[in-house]
């Protein structure tokens, strides 16, 4: 059952549910953050509209910097702006930022502890027809390994908007991961958001038999899987974890204690990703059987988002199989 306390979108199971690209929420949030703080700056590497920074660039042209197709420069220039008290948001495709400019992010942003926001759009395999070169499925691993870095992976456009506004007020370097495709709206304007906090989105009335921890665009699929199990009398609880770093240890450990088995769901390589982060918490605190949904050590390819999610075993049926498998391991 959906957690009514969080005022989630009750129409999320309808066939005509509202769908909006997650990146659009960032674009709207950035304008609000900029309205509230004149130090908010936008920098982009020739993908202003694609990353939805064009709303900001249009409203605040004097605070927008077009660096050209130069992602290494993008983040390094931003570090210099942060040194002078600005709050720079840098946007590109996740494959290029943080994909291409990891060492610049490490040295000039994290090692330097400068508050720069790296906005990686078109993350995940659901980028679709552009193919494997443009499908960032390693970015969570690249960013969560860095000291000082905050990593946020919103589940829908509304959460992305709130996350963007919240990020503008923190002091930490931050990576925010966005998906290109239209994604079901599962939260509402009234759903609370806090960096570092996981939220129970779906909870069965009885003690859960399996806990799902999910992040990003696949949270909706995890909820649908849990709903399908509820109809069959199997209780599955779903935690939305948009804050991958800092990670809500307490919520994860409590879920493991309650359910005794965990499935992680992400649109990213399994190696080093979100599920790995959850496994690191569990193995050191409360080990339980766990299955990980994500890309198994492969690159992507062209196709529709749905074709690709099915092919790389990240569809609803795969989540359901993982739940059944982990149930059998209890």
């Amino acid at each position, binding site marked *: 059952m959906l957690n009514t306390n969080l005022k989630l979108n009750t129409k999320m199971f309808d066939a005509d549910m509202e769908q909006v690209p997650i990146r659009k929420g960032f674009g709207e949030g950035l304008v609000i953050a900029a309205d509230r703080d004149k130090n908010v*700056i936008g920098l982009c590497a020739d993908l202003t509209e694609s990353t939805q920074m064009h709303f900001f660039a249009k409203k605040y042209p*004097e*605070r927008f*910097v077009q*660096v*050209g197709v*130069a992602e*290494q*420069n993008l983040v*390094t*220039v*931003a*570090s*210099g*702006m*942060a*040194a*002078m*008290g*600005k709050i*720079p948001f840098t946007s590109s495709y996740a494959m290029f930022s943080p994909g291409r400019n990891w*060492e*610049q992010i490490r*040295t*000039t942003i994290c*090692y*330097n*502890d400068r508050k720069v926001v790296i906005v990686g759009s078109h993350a995940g395999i659901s980028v679709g027809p552009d193919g494997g070169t443009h499908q960032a499925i390693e970015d969570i691993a690249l960013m969560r390994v860095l000291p000082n870095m905050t990593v946020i992976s919103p589940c829908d456009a509304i959460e992305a908007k709130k996350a963007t506004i919240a990020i503008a007020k923190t002091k930490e370097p931050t990576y925010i991961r966005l998906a290109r495709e239209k994604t079901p709206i599962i939260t509402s304007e009234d759903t609370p958001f806090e960096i570092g906090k996981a939220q129970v989105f779906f909870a069965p009335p009885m003690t859960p038999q399996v806990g799902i921890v999910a992040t990003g665009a696949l949270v909706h699929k995890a909820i649908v899987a849990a709903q399908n199990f509820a109809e069959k009398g199997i209780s599955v609880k779903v935690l939305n974890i948009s804050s991958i770093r800092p990670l809500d240890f307490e919520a994860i450990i409590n879920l493991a204690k309650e359910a005794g088995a965990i499935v992680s769901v992400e649109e990213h390589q399994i190696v080093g990703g979100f599920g790995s982060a959850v496994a690191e918490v569990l193995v050191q605190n409360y080990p339980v059987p766990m299955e990980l949904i994500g890309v198994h050590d492969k690159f992507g390819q062209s196709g529709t988002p749905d074709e690709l999610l099915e092919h790389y075993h990240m569809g609803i049926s795969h989540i359901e199989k993982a739940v059944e498998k982990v149930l059998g391991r209890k």
Partner: protein
Amino acid sequence: MQSLNDEKIKWLTEKANEIRQSIIEMLIEAGSGHSAGPLGMADIFTALFFHIMKHDPTNPLWAERDRLILSNGHICPVLYATMAHSGYFPLEELKTLRKFGSRLQGHPHREYLPFIETSSGPLGLGLSQTVGMCLADRIDHGKYSNKQFYCLLSDGELEEGNTWEGVMLGGKERLQNITAIIDRNNIQIEGYTEDIMPLEPLADKWKAFNWHVQMIDGHNFDQIVGAVGEAQAVFDKPSIIIANTIPGKGVSFMERRWQWHGNPPGKGPEDVVPKERQGKEAIKELRTLGGKIKSEHE
């Protein structure tokens, strides 16, 4: 910025010599680090800290200070030594270079030592950060801000692509308050720049990117100060000063030799001076100005 007179030039020359001695002493104590670059840049650092820059050693984070961004962090012994001689911290602390717990990290870390504007060491990143700082300042204070942004680069690091991304943006944005200085000493860790990856025609490259270009003798205080003055007078363009320097300047057995890029005295090539005497010989040569004056220890 005041113009120089003979008396000030003499004073700066002596100060640069003291800084070179400190560089050698701290490298001997550390047992590792770079010799040639720091010695070669001692005159430019002396001119910046003791004549050109607006800064306050008693208030390292003074908001109105000019910004000095050292892009090639490996020459930090000259930065640390010049800071100590300026009064940022006691000369005694120079002996902690590269030691555990020291504020003087092997490559500079901004959080360890106030006044270090950015951590550096990985090459090719300083100019882009300088561009970002200057852009931010222009947003806040407009085109006619008095704040100056000095970026020090090595010639070898121009091989990094990121440098040229910064050059392009600096030219596009016409950031007139940037004065970048290249330590054109022609060496890098494995040889001469023109053998490893030719940089010439270097001045033409920068001109093509819409920078104001000057070439100077990096050991001539008149030229250093004059070039910075001209850079600040230039309207609507960032400036690059290609400073021809002698790597290892002041220690004859190190001068012009790439083999001294990454070694401290005691660990360099010993075809001229054996390892065990390299430290003492270097100090002696600096104290006596290459034998021109008699050492007080003799």
